[in-house]
């Protein structure tokens, strides 16, 4: 009888021990394998260069779906006007990563609407002037700000030819975990870099555009839709005279 009890006890201890070991090790193994499966575990390479093609002939006047989508995706809409600020001041001080602009040609009078954001230059002036190197260009062509080394001097905003950057003028109480932000730092369009790192396709603005005016893709891939579209028809860079080789190209202006 006592022999039997001992057997049970031994089995129990053995099973319990294995279960305990598994419960300790398994989540680690699981996390490890998940982490390694994610693109963010791999070093970013210059085998790809992300970019956008914007067809202004398709961009609808008065539509700002891309702006709303960007605000939601990156948590810009979580930021409210500070108590005491006027609407006019807030309009100039709130962060804006993408904006719609309507322009008229001086000669022909032709009017076009277009979204404008960081142009993700190959030779970005914002990166050149940043004293600490916080403003940087990833190997895959995305230009962004390291929020840990940005001291908030705004020299990059002085240097950007597209006025694409925003300074955070007030305290940030709520933010998305995928898009860290903070008061006193500069930020701008990241081509939804968190999507790249989590292996999610597209950008918020491109997905939201029901007119198909924004095309996101790999400029280095000869078979990508964006490369084919660029080869098919003429396109321009904004401020092409500066020879920055922008990653965002426009059609129809």
């Amino acid at each position, binding site marked *: 009888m006592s022999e039997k009890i001992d057997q049970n006890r031994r089995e129990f201890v053995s099973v319990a021990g294995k279960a305990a070991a598994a419960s300790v090790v398994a989540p680690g193994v699981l996390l490890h394998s998940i982490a390694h499966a994610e693109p963010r575990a791999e070093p970013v390479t210059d085998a790809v260069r992300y970019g956008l093609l914007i067809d202004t002939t398709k961009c609808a006047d008065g539509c700002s779906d891309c702006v709303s989508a960007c605000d939601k995706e990156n948590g810009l809409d979580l930021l409210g006007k500070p108590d005491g600020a006027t609407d006019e001041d807030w309009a100039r*001080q709130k962060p*804006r990563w993408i904006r719609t602009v309507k322009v008229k040609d001086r000669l022909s009078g032709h009017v076009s609407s277009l979204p404008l954001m960081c142009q993700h230059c190959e030779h970005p002036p914002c990166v050149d*002037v940043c*004293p600490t190197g916080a403003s940087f260009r990833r190997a895959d062509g995305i230009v962004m700000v390291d929020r840990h080394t940005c*001291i908030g001097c*705004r020299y990059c905003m002085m240097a950007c030819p597209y006025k694409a950057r925003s300074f955070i003028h007030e305290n940030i109480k709520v933010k998305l975990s995928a898009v860290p932000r903070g008061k006193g730092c500069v930020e701008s369009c990241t081509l939804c870099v968190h999507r790249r790192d989590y292996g999610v396709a597209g950008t918020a603005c491109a997905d939201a555009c029901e007119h198909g005016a924004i095309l996101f893709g790999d400029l280095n891939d000869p078979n990508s839709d964006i490369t084919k579209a660029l080869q098919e028809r003429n396109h321009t860079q904004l*401020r092409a005279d500066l020879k920055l080789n922008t990653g965002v190209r426009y059609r129809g202006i």
Partner: protein
Amino acid sequence: MKKIYYREWGIESPRYWGLLAVLTVILAVAGFAVLHMEHEGHWVTGMNNEVVWGVPHVFAIFLIVAASGALNVAALGSVFGKHIYKSLGRLSGLLAMTLLLSGLLILVLDLGQPSRLIVAMTTYNFKSIFAWNIYLYVGFLVIVAAYLFTMMERKAQRFYKGVGLLAFVWRLILTTGTGSIFGFIVARPGYDAAMLAPMFIIMSFAYGLAIYLLVLMFTFDAEGRALGDKLLGRLKSLLGIFVSAIFYFVLVYHLTNLYGTENHEYEAFILLNGGIYTTLFWVGWVLLGMLVPMAILFHPALGNSRGGIIAASLLVILGGLAAMYVIVIGGQAFPMPIFPDKIILESGFQDGIGGAALYYSPSLPEFLLGIGGVALALGVTLVAVRMLKFLPASLADEVVDPHHG
């Protein structure tokens, strides 16, 4: 030339402490302004995503530029061997250091993340002129401190000329670096000119000397020390020449711009229809900051009167602040030519619709920070001349000029 003796600044204690008390109150108010801006964020200032550098930068850059200019008086004595200026070297070095420190402090306190100064001091991007400037500024402070030591310590006197030359060359590079902060910006029509660097150098000559003259006259007059007309006459003539040189540079800068059609809109903005920027350019910088001081300084009677020299120096300083406002803020307020062939009709982020100027309205905290910087420079200077032998006991004509009488 007689041997020059130096003595601590010996005005009566109540007056001295009264002065310091006034400056301390200004500093305290400026301190609260800084805390307010840092606690709330920059939304409490007039700066925004269009005009990102405001009044603090106007004051900071003016002080940094003036700092390098204040050192010129010493350089005239050591580098160019003009004995008459040798006795002025100590105050010159002191002002150079206090003005630079104050200018830098304003810049640092305006950062979005001033607590990350350590990052700025340890992490560098050497393609940035800003990063180079951090070295140039720190180096300037070290070299000028050494320069002062060679002036004030007998045993170090044999290094006086060498360190003086180094300090002079360094200050030229430093102001080149400061001018290049703007000169290297290709995107904005108001900047992107190699000429800004030499223009900043000549501006520094005038602004530094104007501040030097005022401090010299105030400290000497307050204590009743002799300050001869001979020396003052030389310094005021130099100021007149420096201001004339700025005038020349401003003329060439705008004439060059006017020749190229691409710059016409920017030139029209500054010279004709830019509102506050046009007013500040013509009235502040050109008229009050250059023409009137030149008229006073070169006038046979006014130029030789103490009141005339004080008025001219004050006007040069005010004109300098106006100049910085036009360059720093006017250069940003002019809308960027993102679409050179097009007119912007609508924008979700301002952008200067129809070519309108971008909006900036300076706020009180910004002015307080800037004025606090000026108060700090003056305060430290006054404490230093009180504690150490920076000021010559006399600058009477017979002391400074061997041929006098």
